[in-house]
């Protein structure tokens, strides 16, 4: 153990002395002290790569400039961050990048939110002395939910890093060498022929417009503008906790009511809330879990446990590719988005008396994998495409702006009935651990007739940002029909991001896991950190969004999925019983083993 005295260093930056911590980099020290050093390849979620060289500084005694992101501080180090040499170097680096960056800012999705553009402005780049290449060299594949435009790529490699370091997928890699380096897939395959899970984490890390979501706004506008179409929209829990960021509001602001108002003003005929089917998911998935447990414990029959959640389509893609042998463990429940889609064109259409063929069902999701999910051939159970178009949070923000709406000025309004009614248990689906918490709130009460033994229903052990979390709960005094669970210690685990999921799955595969239920979210932080969410992202931003989500939960009148009155009516009027015939037809699905490479 180092003592505090030993690990404290004195370092001078721009003539002023600072207390530095042993082991921290120059960049970290500077940031802590509000000294701005520009970066491009650096990202709070990723290892330092030192590739872009924007962050170079002068260090006394060093022959050449030092990359502040990778250079550790040392006792009595003398650093200068804004000398002429440093400034000139950074300007030149920006020019070098701009010279090879082909594309117009004005027609780019990242216009006004582009790190390269910002730096060019900050460093006063008025001309690119090497000339600016205008010729497009790459074809853009717009079929997949993630659209890559290598002409705009500046090779910072944050995308390949997140794919490898956080997701462990490595679908995209640096290819070629030297000037021929570009980011691509093995053998030049298109993304949908790789193991890409379409989580979109690469998009969230891209400093420019080289990685974007496949746009659905035009189709949605077309549907809205078509008077023969009845356009229904659902919005996922995580949108309300992040949408404001697209309107320059600091992270952590909830805009649930304003968002509902904006959606109505845009012209959606009906504005529903995916939270409704999140509650429904808890009923279906909770029933499925208890049924599996009963089979295992009472009937002693062969049943796949632990059961895994199935709400995260990036996770579904991942398990299909990487752990196909564990597919039986996956809950057969569709994700809330797809349950919703199937109900809109059946239950809602009947109730409303609208011909389902005239319904256009749109979802707003924090996620690019949802676009992939909606296109799956399994997702036509209503007899139509259950979800026609998926918009990301970013696309919704663009539509709001295009409609001339100032989101933050709007009055709150409510979602429409009946599928706009939801509980606090549903909104926490947006955060890692939320599905688990919602499931425990309901399952425990179902089994024991009592509320979960946690103050204010907050099941803290499953919350937080730790990559893998474990918890257990012992069942005592269950209701008679669940007596087989008396004294049982129910063990759960939660993972977010796919490298963490892999660790859990390896344990399950090796038979070393004693859990009953595992929640996996493909993205760090859960849906609130999804690939469709506002850019940038960082651990702090995701923390703020999580706080917003839990505050929303705390403020709800109803906090438990089984108390959702509209869900009860849905069962009475339509589905009849959880995991029943109709449910299986509309709300459950099958999975397909796929290849790795």
């Amino acid at each position, binding site marked *: 153990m180092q003592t505090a005295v030993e690990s404290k260093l004195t370092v001078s930056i721009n003539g002023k002395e600072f207390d530095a911590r042993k082991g921290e980099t120059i960049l970290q020290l500077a940031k802590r002290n509000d000294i701005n050093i520009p970066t491009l390849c650096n990202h709070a979620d990723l290892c*330092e*790569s*030192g*590739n*872009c*060289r*924007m962050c*170079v500084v002068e260090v006394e005694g060093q022959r*050449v*400039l030092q*990359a502040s992101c*990778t*250079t*550790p501080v040392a006792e009595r180090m003398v650093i200068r961050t804004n000398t002429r*040499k440093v400034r*000139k*170097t950074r300007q*030149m*680096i920006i020019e*070098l*990048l701009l*010279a*090879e960056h082909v594309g117009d800012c004005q027609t780019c999705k990242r216009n006004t939110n582009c790190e390269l553009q910002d730096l060019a402005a900050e460093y006063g780049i008025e001309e690119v*002395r*090497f000339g600016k290449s205008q010729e497009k060299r790459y074809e853009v594949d717009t079929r997949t939910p993630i659209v890559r435009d290598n002409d705009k790529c*500046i*090779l910072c490699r944050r995308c390949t890093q997140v794919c490898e370091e956080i997701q462990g997928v490595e679908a995209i890699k*640096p290819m*070629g*060498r*030297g*000037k*021929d*380096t570009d980011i691509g897939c093995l053998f030049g395959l298109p993304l949908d022929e790789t193991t890409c899970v379409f989580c979109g984490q690469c998009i969230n890390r891209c400093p420019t417009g080289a990685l974007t979501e496949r746009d659905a706004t035009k189709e949605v506008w077309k549907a809205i503008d078509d008077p023969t179409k009845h356009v229904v929209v659902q919005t996922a829990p995580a949108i309300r906790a992040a949408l404001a960021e697209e309107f320059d509001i600091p992270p952590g602001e909830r805009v649930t009511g304003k968002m509902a108002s904006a959606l109505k003003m845009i012209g959606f005929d009906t504005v529903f809330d995916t939270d409704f089917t999140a509650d429904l998911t808890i009923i279906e998935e909770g029933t499925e879990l208890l049924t599996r447990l009963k089979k295992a414990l009472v009937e002693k029959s062969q049943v796949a446990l632990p059961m895994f959640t199935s709400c995260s389509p990036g996770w579904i893609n991942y398990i299909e590719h990487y752990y196909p042998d564990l597919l039986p463990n996956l809950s057969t429940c569709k994700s809330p988005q797809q349950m919703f889609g199937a109900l809109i064109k059946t239950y809602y259409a009947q109730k409303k008396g609208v011909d389902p063929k005239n319904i256009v069902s749109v979802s707003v999701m924090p996620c690019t994998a949802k676009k992939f999910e909606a296109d799956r051939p399994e997702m036509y159970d209503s007899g139509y495409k259950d979800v026609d178009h998926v918009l990301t949070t970013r696309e919704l923000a663009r539509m709001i702006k295009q409609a001339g709406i100032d989101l933050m000025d709007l009055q709150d309004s409510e979602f429409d009935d009946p599928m706009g009614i939801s509980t606090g248990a549903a909104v926490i689906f947006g955060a890692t651990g939320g599905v688990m918490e919602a499931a425990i709130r309901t399952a425990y009460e179902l089994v024991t007739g009592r509320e979960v033994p946690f103050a204010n229903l907050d099941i803290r052990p499953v919350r937080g940002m730790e990559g893998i979390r474990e918890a257990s709960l012992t069942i005592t005094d269950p209701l008679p029909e669940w007596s087989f669970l008396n004294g049982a210690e129910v063990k759960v685990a939660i993972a977010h991001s796919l490298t963490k999921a892999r660790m859990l799955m390896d344990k399950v595969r090796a038979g070393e896991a004693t859990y009953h239920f595992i929640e996996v979210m493909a993205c760090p932080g859960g849906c609130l950190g999804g690939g469709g969410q506002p850019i940038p992202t960082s651990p702090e931003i995701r923390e703020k969004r999580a706080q917003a989500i839990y505050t929303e939960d705390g403020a709800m009148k109803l906090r438990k999925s089984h108390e959702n009155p509209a869900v009860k009516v849905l069962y009475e009027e339509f589905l009849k019983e959880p995991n029943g015939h109709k449910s299986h037809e509309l709300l459950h699905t099958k999975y397909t083993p796929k290849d790795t490479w």
Partner: protein
Amino acid sequence: MQRSCLLSPGCKCNEAFEKAFSYTPEEIINIIKDSGLRGRGGAGFPTGMKWEFAAKAAGEKKYVVCNADEGEPGTFKDRVLLTDSLDKLVQGMAIAGYAIGANYGILYLRSEYKWMLNDLNAKFNEFKNQNYLGNNIMGKGFDFDIEIKLNAGAYVCGEETALIESMEGKRGEPRNKPPFPVQSGYMGYPTVINNVETLCNIPYILEHGVAEFKKYGTERSCGTKLFSISGDCAKPGVYEMDLGITIREMLEMVGASNTKAVQIGGASGSTAGEKDFDKTICFEGFPPGGSIIIFNKSRNMARVLKNFIHFFEEESCGQCTPCREGTRRLKEAVDRIERGEKLSDEDMNTMLELAEVMKNSSKCGLGQTAANPFVDILGKFREDF
């Protein structure tokens, strides 16, 4: 002036080993430090210091890597050592292992030298049979073994951290330093990486002593050095010469006449013009890389420059901005010049500024030196442009 410390027929393993193992590891490190031996791979880092860092670094395992990547255009001196003085190399590696506490050696071999593989393996087996390698070397209680790894064929893989990446099966791209290989190298273990020639000097120093070694060379560049000399001269080949020899002496030795320019240290080295010929080749003069290329007055230096710059553009690993984009822009400029275009003063200034940026901000030695020939050759041979 011409020496044969390294190129002499093999010294006796017995003697060098016998001597080496009579010392403690610390004593060996001190001897190498005293000898003033500096790395022959290009940068001239003091070998004794490098070993000392590795010896002091904590690690349950350590490695000695011999850099036999020899990728610098015009260099073939390590090849000669590998074929003719392998015994010296093996001793050098084992002694390095003993000094730093490593039981594993890796010979990182240039892919173009694949043809040596069978022969090298056969000789390593022989060394093992004679107990110069393997367990309990010469009954001294020290185990050391050498394994050969082949380069994937890129020049940049000769850079020590790219070399490690490549050995670990990754893209051969330089790492950020620190940490240096002596702290965290191959598989995260402390690793000493030395050039073939550096290691071949070790048994000589131990056998003959520091004083004998220091008889050659200058105060800050001790010993002899191998040069692969090519180009416009009567007697090209590999020469062993004292460090500190003047360029003129060297030219005489190899029978060069009517010389216009001498490229010392390969593409990234420096270019000497006629008025430099009385300067010395050593760490305090023209830095001694492995290769010397001679150009006589019939040569157009614009063509030479073009070749060098094209080489770097091809060989940049593409990782960092200044080198990847900078070499591309330099190439554009030299191609324009070659086509007979005259660069405007403004363009020329931009290029010189670029050269400075590449030197100051590239991640590794390749990018940091890639613009050297541009600045050097343009500065010294304006009339050719």
